[in-house]
């Protein structure tokens, strides 16, 4: 039985895009711009991994953009005060975990709908940050960018860390009980409970992980330039959710692999660079991204119909 074919069709679409770029605009593949481009997408990739976890457990989190910004600013402020980068990273992780825990508490233990809870926390964090920072660009001290290493080394660390996270998380999802519990809770919480899984603890854990991943992503963004902008996470939630969904994570929970997120994100993130390299005007970007998302879900719907007919 052929199961999750979606990753492959998205990967194929992405491959096709890359192929046409190779023919029309070979400059796209020059080593340096390619490396910068990939590195700058890594924070979004890490966030999208977290969102994938959340969606697999049949929840949603739209506060991640605000969490990302908040963690970035906290880390930035700690770093700017002269403390070492390690402390800044820990502070960001603590902050992310706390925000995730709040979402998790409200969703898992009070049984509130995640979309509304995270809508509320999104607005709250976002506006609190605006109130606090008034949008000032924060200059970071030297030695923060690229973890104090050279540019190439720094980029390698960021890409390597993301790859490691992807491998680690997808291995954990398959091979440890907690990972499988997420799938179980996502496909049927009641059945999972009867099977001895604690759905509340699982959901809570997923939201905390989301917060920690948002913090890690914020750190990966922080080290890419000598400044941090308090609005750096604006719109991140839509980008990450779209990447997860296009990558084959079923919004109704319980289905999809973390590996699918990678081609999903790459496809969506490369619409804009492709337009630039084809020398096309930028104002088609949103329309094309919208179409990609719709096509992906329509393809999903079609497959499901076929499968249910065959089965």
């Amino acid at each position, binding site marked *: 039985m052929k199961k999750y074919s979606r990753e492959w069709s998205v990967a194929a679409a992405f491959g096709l895009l890359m192929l046409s770029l190779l023919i029309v605009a070979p400059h796209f593949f020059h080593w340096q711009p390619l490396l910068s481009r990939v590195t700058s997408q890594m924070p979004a990739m890490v966030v999208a991994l977290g969102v994938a976890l959340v969606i697999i457990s049949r929840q*949603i989190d739209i506060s991640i953009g605000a969490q990302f910004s908040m963690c970035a600013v906290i880390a930035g402020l700690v770093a700017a005060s002269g403390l070492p980068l390690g402390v800044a990273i820990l502070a960001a992780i603590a902050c992310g975990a706390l925000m995730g825990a709040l979402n998790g508490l409200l969703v898992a233990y009070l049984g509130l709908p995640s979309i509304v809870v995270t809508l509320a926390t999104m607005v709250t964090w976002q506006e*609190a940050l605006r*109130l606090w920072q008034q949008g000032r660009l924060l200059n970071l001290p030297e030695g923060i960018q690229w973890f104090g290493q050279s540019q190439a080394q720094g980029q390698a660390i960021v890409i390597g860390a993301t790859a490691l996270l992807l491998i680690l998380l997808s291995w954990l999802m398959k091979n440890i009980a907690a990972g499988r519990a997420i799938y179980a809770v996502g496909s049927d919480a009641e059945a999972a409970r009867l099977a001895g899984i604690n759905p509340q603890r699982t959901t809570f854990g997923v939201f905390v992980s989301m917060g920690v991943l948002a913090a890690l992503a914020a750190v990966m963004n922080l080290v890419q330039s000598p400044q941090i902008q308090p609005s750096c996470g604006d719109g991140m939630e839509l980008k990450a959710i779209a990447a997860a969904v296009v990558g084959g994570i079923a919004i*109704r929970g319980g289905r999809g692999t973390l590996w699918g997120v990678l081609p999903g994100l790459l496809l969506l993130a490369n619409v804009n660079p492709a337009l630039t390299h084809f020398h096309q*005007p930028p104002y088609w970007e*949103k329309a094309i991204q919208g179409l990609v*998302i719709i096509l992906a879900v329509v393809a999903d719907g079609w497959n499901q119909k076929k499968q249910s007919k065959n089965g």
Partner: protein
Amino acid sequence: MSQSTNQPKWTALLAKHETVLLAVILVEILLFQNLGRNFLAESNVSNIFRHSVEIGLLALVMTPVILTGGIDLSLGSMMGLCAVVFGLLVKQFDVSPWLAAVAAISLGAFGGMGNAFLITRMNLPPLIVTLGTFSLFRGLAEALTKGSEAYSGFPQGFLNLGNANVLGLPAQLWVFFFITLLVWVLVHRTVWGRSLQAIGFAPQGARYAGISVGRNTGMAYVLAGAIAGLAAVILVARLGEARANIGIGYELLAITAVVLGGTSIFGGSGSISGTLLGYVAIAILNNGLSRITAHQIFDQPVSSVARELSGMLTGLLLLLALAAGVLLKSLATRRARRQSLITTTNPTPST
């Protein structure tokens, strides 16, 4: 639901979401009247509604959508698209504004039909479908205007819709009243409206009960699209300008109003009056904070950071409302359980 009839009347009223919201609104009014400058001046009361009617309209039609257990994230983008097409028709093709308004509303309905088709016929999740059209509609609006063109210079007669007073109230408020009545009748007084609650409560059950789930759900999205088109026209009339970024973020404000109004995001229960109160609470909060000029918060005058504060407070209010709802419910079920325990142990003779 049935247990609540056993409770004393005043607690039932107290537990009603609408009552709590009314109290919130009254507290807001009292607070802003005392702290704010000219908060209750007639011109400001007009402002409160003039500036928020579009969000109110979206919230009204978002209610039936959420009642079915769905959601529509594309409404703000739909406003952008309808506004641009409206401007294009009037300025490039010399169509009369009123005819163009009809066209914009039809376009909205048509876009809503697109959403409805994908959601009901293809059986796709509303959140993702409308996330896609959220991008698509805004993208089309930007592409149509090459991202940068805007249309202005509409005839005064049309601009009056957004700026003049009729019988002492802002002109667009009358449109809002009419739509409120329309949506209220549709949701609470028609078979269609009742079927929506059934669908949201249990779609499979509704189907067995002979309800055409697909068509009835789809209608909610079409209605939402059409009214988004109307909201776009009203906003263009108020600003005197049509551009692609109109309505940005309005869908989230509308959803906030609906949920604050007590409609369950899972569908099945909710009311138009709750939505109205939720919307008014947000609108007053937004306006009122910007009129507190004499007090400071974090070394800034409240009026200077009113937008951030009202956003934050709306978020917190939403959380509080949700948590209070859960708390009341669990209290009610506990009481009901105790009562049913009593009734089962010593059954009272029926009269």
